[in-house]
């Protein structure tokens, strides 16, 4: 339990409340000290997190346009407009599809890479670093590299396909493939991060469990994985899935750098719609409404995670 939780449990206890009711100076001083000590963190939290969040929600209920000197409250009009906006639904669908590819892909690949590195005898640090590079690299810069690789005529991907007799495509300009290509880049960019989390999880599995498994007859690597590794990684996996999902929902840089939502809205995603509304069409209120939808989705995921984590993964 965190110290804060201990503190609040104490505050809620009947003894504490009784002490407060008696109003002894000592307890009042303690209470004052407690508030004083938590004040800086509270102020920063309100200023940097709660404040902006509230501002977004408020702006979402206005017709504010960037640069305007006045604004008017329009209630839920922005949200009603969203509900009948085909581009918004397209963006929501694309985002969902993107998440459905990136999350399983980056989690599975991250887990595979982590278990392979953990099992390796040498060069562990080398592989760890190499596979983590995409996470550290600036995605916009890397997007340029991807653009070259995916170029229809002189790109490495099509040249390689051509060498084995396959017909390449114009990956980023083809509405059938563009979103999937972005998803693949998303997996490439994210799985290294997941791998590091899984590596941390793997290193915390007690070695004795593997030895017990070996004695109990779990001879093959697969048996050991099923009996020990996978279940013991449960909490980490849940965390990785939620983090990956939240990050996938926030896809923006590759879209902005490579396709700008095109071709024909095939790669229009929530965050890109929001950006376009806010900074190209200056419809700030409408963009804020999209932001609120995104925030609600991500918050729901976090709540699900917290709930499952509390309930299930207690060893």
């Amino acid at each position: 339990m965190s110290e804060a939780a201990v503190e609040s449990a104490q505050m809620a206890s009947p003894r504490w409340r009784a002490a407060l009711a008696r109003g002894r100076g000592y307890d009042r001083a303690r209470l004052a000290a407690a508030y004083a000590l938590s004040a800086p963190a509270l102020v920063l939290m309100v200023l940097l997190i709660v404040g902006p969040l509230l501002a977004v929600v408020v702006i979402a209920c206005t017709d504010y346009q960037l640069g305007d000197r006045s604004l008017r409250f329009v209630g839920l009009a922005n949200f009603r407009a969203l509900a009948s906006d085909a581009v918004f639904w397209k963006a929501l669908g694309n985002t969902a599809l993107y998440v459905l590819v990136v999350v399983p892909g980056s989690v599975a690949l991250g887990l595979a890479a982590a278990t392979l590195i953990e099992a390796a005898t040498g060069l562990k640090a080398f592989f760890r670093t190499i596979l983590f590079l995409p996470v550290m690299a600036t995605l916009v810069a890397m997007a340029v590299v991807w653009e070259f690789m995916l170029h229809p005529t002189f790109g490495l991907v099509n040249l390689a396909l051509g060498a084995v007799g396959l017909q390449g495509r114009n990956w980023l300009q083809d509405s059938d493939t563009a979103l999937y290509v972005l998803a693949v880049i998303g997996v490439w960019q994210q799985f290294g991060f997941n791998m590091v989390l899984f590596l941390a999880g793997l290193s915390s599995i007690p070695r004795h469990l593997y030895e017990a498994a070996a004695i109990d007859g779990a001879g093959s690597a697969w048996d050991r994985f099923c009996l020990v590794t996978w279940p013991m990684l449960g909490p980490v996996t849940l965390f990785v899935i939620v983090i990956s999902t939240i990050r996938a929902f926030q896809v923006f840089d590759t879209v902005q750098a490579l396709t700008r939502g095109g071709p024909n809205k095939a790669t229009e995603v929530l965050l890109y719609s929001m950006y376009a509304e806010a900074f190209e069409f200056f419809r700030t209120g409408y963009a804020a409404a999209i932001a609120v939808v995104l925030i609600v989705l991500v918050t729901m995921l976090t709540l699900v995670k917290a709930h499952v984590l509390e309930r299930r993964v207690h060893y």
Partner: protein
Amino acid sequence: MSGLAQVDLRQVRKSFDRTEVLKGIDLSVTHGEFVALVGASGCGKSTLLRVIAGLEPLSGGDVVIDGRTVNGASPSERDLAMVFQSYALYPHLSVFDNIAVPLRMRRLNALQRAPLLRWLMPGTRTTEHGIRRDVERLAALLVITELLARKPGQLSGGQRQRVAVGRAMVREPKVFLFDEPLSNLDAKLRVHMRAEIAQLHRELRATFIYVTHDQAEAMTMSDRVAVMMDGRLLQVAAPAEIYNDPQDLRVAEFIGSPRINVVDLLAGDDGTVRLNGTHVRIRAKAAPGDRVKLGFRPEAARLIEPVAGGLCGRVIHVENLGPDIFVHVSTGGGAGALIVRTAPGEPRAHIGENVGLDVPPGRALIFASDGKRLQRAAA
């Protein structure tokens, strides 16, 4: 049942990098025997157990189980069970599933163990039924039936210990290995579990190899005690023999609490050791004037009036434990105090009193300066 196997270790060696941890161990554990491997921490006893289990590859020598050399065999091929110090229960599985793991690994094939898919495979249900019956029977035996649905995290130390033993017992292996199984329990529970494991051994009549740093466990539970030090076996013998007839000063010092008293003496001109007027003749080649060590247990000595030229000193401390009173006697000269046990009925010693110590020759143990025991000749 199949719980009988002979384990032979022949010149077993183990090195980690350049550090030699096991320096040639020879040990035979016969069918149904309970052997305790005891030694200070870092002496290599746990490594030896892990080598027998197949968890560590050996660097030299042979591990032979029932006449079959198993040097390269995996742990599961050796048909032995192990109880770990940390119990190593699978935290995500219920007690029932923990105990069922060894059976499932053996009786079900890979497809019958696969999640979800397993219930589509022919035979899974029948086998699972048999597994349930066996686990429940064992649980009743160990009195853990009401724990079967719980997770290890919800159990006390003693209960986890019992579940770990259950998981080891369930497939009736030939050899049981215990790696300090009681060291995580509190003192009272430890004494209780000691009796239970000894009882278990009598009932199963399987071969037990039990590693501990606690001499009391080793002495009370086992048929034979193997004292290990610095990667070697110093002596392997029955508990009483280890205590009364140690072959090495280090064994004598390790076993027994309070520890054995040791006094430096010089061998006389005729190669005998003179003690309180009696001659304890050393049969071995103690040259006249050799330094030897005289060892005697606290209960072997008796307090007497000081005798000139004999062993004597001043009482500096008296410990009354009820049935035993330990009298600490300082002989001066910077040596540690000698400890003598007296019974409550005997005359009391007082702090500051000058006393003499009488050690009957028959109970004196004499060691050469290198620690090897020198046999006494009849006086």
